[in-house]
């Protein structure tokens, strides 16, 4: 379907370098930190930005030089970009007006789409009176009524209230059964929930591409860091450990030993029990994320909600499922 071949682009502070990948029609998520150049990729695919080098193919055809108005890729930017000078109905109709589609056909399409996206009741409203979720549906409808070959979504849930995120994700999943979707985000939760194909882009480079498994098996240190893994150096090799695989236990009983350096060294190596000091924690309700000083490094670990802990506590540390990177 869509294929990027060595696409490069410098745009404002962003620099995209030799990005290549090929998509089938699965739900594709491009995941990366803010400022990684994800929007630049999507705007190159939409044709809004000219690439500096490389090629973009759709179904084998080179579309690199094709103007955006001839690509028929739906594009929904982060802020939805509804036309403020038109009501919802006219926003959705815009593309069909340009294509000179007759009113009856257009009306039918708009009504069907409005029903599908549950916005029939707001067709006469102006964009600025809509909630974030409504705006998003209108933007989706505006793109979808043109039967686009591809739907490009830029951080589709970042402007939405947390409470409606699950509904929105569910809707996006449904839409992806009609139209292939490329969805860019910095949010792991979205990528996990929606992504059938996931591309990880960091600093303008494609770092990994695959299914959800790439979360469990970071390909390199950069990806591991981005995914929140702890990086541990041991015996000249680097290991990545997920926060939930760092197991801690309170070590009150041996506090005195730790404070005494001699004994600590003795304890530390032979029987390979490791210790750390709690720096702080965040109580997320269902779990606690604890930050621990360990060998001059900072470790993150996840533990139970009920695990009572406070800054300055000494804890024993154990690692499970370490990954060589």
């Amino acid at each position, binding site marked *: 379907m869509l294929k990027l071949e060595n696409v490069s682009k410098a745009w404002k502070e962003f620099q995209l370098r030799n990005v290549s990948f090929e998509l089938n029609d699965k739900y594709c998520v491009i995941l990366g930190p803010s400022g990684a150049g994800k929007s630049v990729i999507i*705007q190159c695919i*939409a*044709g*809004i930005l000219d690439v500096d080098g490389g090629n973009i193919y759709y179904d084998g055809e080179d579309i690199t030089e094709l*103007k*955006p*108005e*001839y*690509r*028929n*890729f*739906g*594009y*929904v*930017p*982060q*802020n939805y*970009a509804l*036309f*403020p*000078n038109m009501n919802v109905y006219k926003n959705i109709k*815009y*593309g069909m007006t*340009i*294509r000179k589609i007759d009113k009856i056909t257009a009306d039918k399409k708009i009504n069907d789409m409005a029903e599908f996206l549950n916005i029939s009741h707001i067709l006469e409203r102006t964009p600025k009176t809509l909630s974030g979720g409504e705006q998003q549906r209108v*933007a989706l409808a*505006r*793109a979808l009524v*043109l039967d686009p070959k591809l739907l*490009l979504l830029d951080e589709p849930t970042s402007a939405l209230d947390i409470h409606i995120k699950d509904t929105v994700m569910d809707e996006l999943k449904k839409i992806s059964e009609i139209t292939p979707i490329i969805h860019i985000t910095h949010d792991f939760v979205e990528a996990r929930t929606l992504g059938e194909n996931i591309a990880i882009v960091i600093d303008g480079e494609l770092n990994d591409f695959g299914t959800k498994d790439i979360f469990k098996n970071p390909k390199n240190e950069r990806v591991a860091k981005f995914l929140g893994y702890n990086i541990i150096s041991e015996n000249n090799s680097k290991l990545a450990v997920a926060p939930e695989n760092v197991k801690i236990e309170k070590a009150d009983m041996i506090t005195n030993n730790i404070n005494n350096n001699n004994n600590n060294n003795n304890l530390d190596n032979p029987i390979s029990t490791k210790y750390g000091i709690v720096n702080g924690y965040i109580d997320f309700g269902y779990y606690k994320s604890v930050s621990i000083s360990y060998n001059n490094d900072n470790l993150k670990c996840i533990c139970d909600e009920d695990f009572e802990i406070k800054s300055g506590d000494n804890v024993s540390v154990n690692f499970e499922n370490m990954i060589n990177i």
Partner: protein
Amino acid sequence: MKIDKSFYAVFLSASIFILLFVSLPLITMLLNPGDVSAAIVDKEVIKSLEVSLKAAGMSTLFALIFGVPLAYIFARNDFKGKGLIESIIDIPMAIPHSVVGIMILSFFYGSTIGEFLTDAGLKIVDNFWGIVAVMLYVGIPFMINSARDGFEMVDEELEHVSRTLGASRFKTFFSISLPIIKNNLVSGSILTYARGLSEVGAILIVAYFPKTTPVLIMDRFNQFGLSSSKPISVVMIVVSILLFTIFR
């Protein structure tokens, strides 16, 4: 914030002073207008109003047609020398009005291009089009700055989305960008129109005839003194304020 009496006392005093300074001359004028009824049937006054309003309208139209595209380029593109070009556009605001007149006159009667234009039939001295040229010259910065401010506030993503929906650049400009900055275009037009309407100095030099109302007022003042120019001034004030109020 908590009300702080001495702070507000000082600030209010200064504000009231400047408000009185601006409004008292206006109020005095409107309360003692002189013989306005004679002025509004005076044929010369009517003729001058016609010239003024038409010329200002024409110059505003030209400013829209030629200024808005430049404003769009300023708002959407970065290029070397942009700052310089933007300052050039502001120059008409910095140059004394009589100098503007001298410059325009010198251009038409002292440069090859100017003489070519004159030979081609574009007369400006004591001509309606001379008035339009002067008004356009002094008014264009207002139009360009208003429109640029407007375009800068239009989210570029709107234009991007419009294109992905199948609209060409032209179509996008006329269906999306222009309608969104409607308010800026209106206020730019008002400012340009008002600037043109109010000009005297440059017009006195380039085109004393046909007389615009401000020129006529000057004329009457010089010939017959204050009292005979007051009624026309009042008419002009009312016209100016009405135009301002209607279009806002």
